[in-house]
């Protein structure tokens, strides 16, 4: 090993150590500050905008994510996502799942009115659960199919986005897993398009079952919307699910190889 390689390695280890020293305290501090500012900001914002409480809460969560992205720079270099064309509204956002941090990265989206559809366990985090409930996040295990469908219909009526992790769980090896068909069934039932989101890098920062973080570049790409009207028959949602998954697999492959700039749907 040359002296230069050894020096580079030491620098890298120092950078990783610094990231870990800064990342969690900053995250904790910002969460406490955010919770403390909330009782002042919420009524103020409600008075100014006259929006319903859930929409305001969703905007606050988005701001929380956006500030988290700014605070964690340059350890996590997260590029803000842009739509590849005109913004489609409402929509069903489907994103691949690599890390617990994926939810925070959604602060990189160019809009704030996003309802997360999640399983029951995130609602057990007592420090986030009240805000999640106020934002009307969907507990898909509690709601069941009929409950999810009616909630989505109401949310789409108000122009909101609903975000799903169709894999259901974080990927343990970085590869995209089987898609559950729920979001696509909702798309077919409601006529609302699916907007695929591709995320890379969060599995390097904080993969499942690891506690220390590693600095990395995180990218979130928005692919063109996929319309359910292109599919028909009793298995329309299954065909749509397969197509969307294939698009995401292809785009993620380009992103990982750093070739996404040449891809049609690249930002």
């Amino acid at each position, binding site marked *: 090993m040359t002296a230069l390689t050894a020096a580079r390695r030491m620098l890298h280890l120092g950078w990783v150590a610094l990231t870990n020293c800064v990342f969690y305290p900053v995250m904790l501090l910002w969460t406490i500050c955010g919770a403390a500012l909330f009782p002042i900001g919420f009524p103020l914002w409600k008075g100014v905008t006259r929006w319903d409480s859930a929409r305001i809460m969703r905007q606050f969560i988005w701001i929380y994510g956006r500030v988290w992205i700014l605070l964690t720079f340059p350890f996590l270099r997260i590029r803000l996502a842009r739509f590849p064309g005109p913004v489609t509204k409402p929509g069903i956002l489907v994103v691949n799942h690599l890390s617990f941090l994926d939810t925070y990265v959604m602060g990189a989206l160019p809009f704030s009115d996003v309802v997360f559809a999640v399983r029951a366990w995130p609602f057990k985090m007592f420090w986030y659960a009240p805000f999640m409930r106020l934002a009307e996040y969907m507990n898909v295990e509690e709601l069941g199919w009929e409950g999810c469908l009616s909630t989505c219909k109401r949310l789409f009526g108000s122009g909101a986005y609903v975000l799903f992790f169709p894999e259901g769980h974080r990927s343990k090896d970085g590869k995209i897993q*089987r898609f559950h*068909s*729920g979001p696509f069934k909702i798309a077919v039932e409601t006529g609302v398009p699916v907007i695929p989101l591709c995320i890379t890098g969060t599995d390097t920062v904080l993969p499942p079952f690891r506690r220390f973080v590693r600095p990395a570049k995180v990218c979130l790409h928005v692919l063109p919307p996929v319309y359910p009207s292109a599919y028909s028959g009793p*298995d329309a949602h*299954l065909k749509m699910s397969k197509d969307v998954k294939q698009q995401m697999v292809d785009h993620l492959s380009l992103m990982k190889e750093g070739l996404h700039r040449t891809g049609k749907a690249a930002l």
Partner: protein
Amino acid sequence: MTDSEIIRLIDTSLAEEFELDQATLTPDAHIYEDLGLDSLDMVDMVVVLEKAFHFKIREEEAIREIRTLGDIHEFVLSKKREMGA
């Protein structure tokens, strides 16, 4: 179509649709616990079987009793026999 061909078609259709490992497809595999499917997947499973075997089974009460892959095999085999009779 022989019984073993029917069973093979069931297994390959489900493996393809739900991205299941062929090794997990044993008759005693529990639909939820071993194959990791959920209630919505069961609805999709009906669609997949209907497409593979060109029959309508969504209104059948017996589907609600299915717990294992072996139950699915039995259900489809009896449905095929019923259609053939």
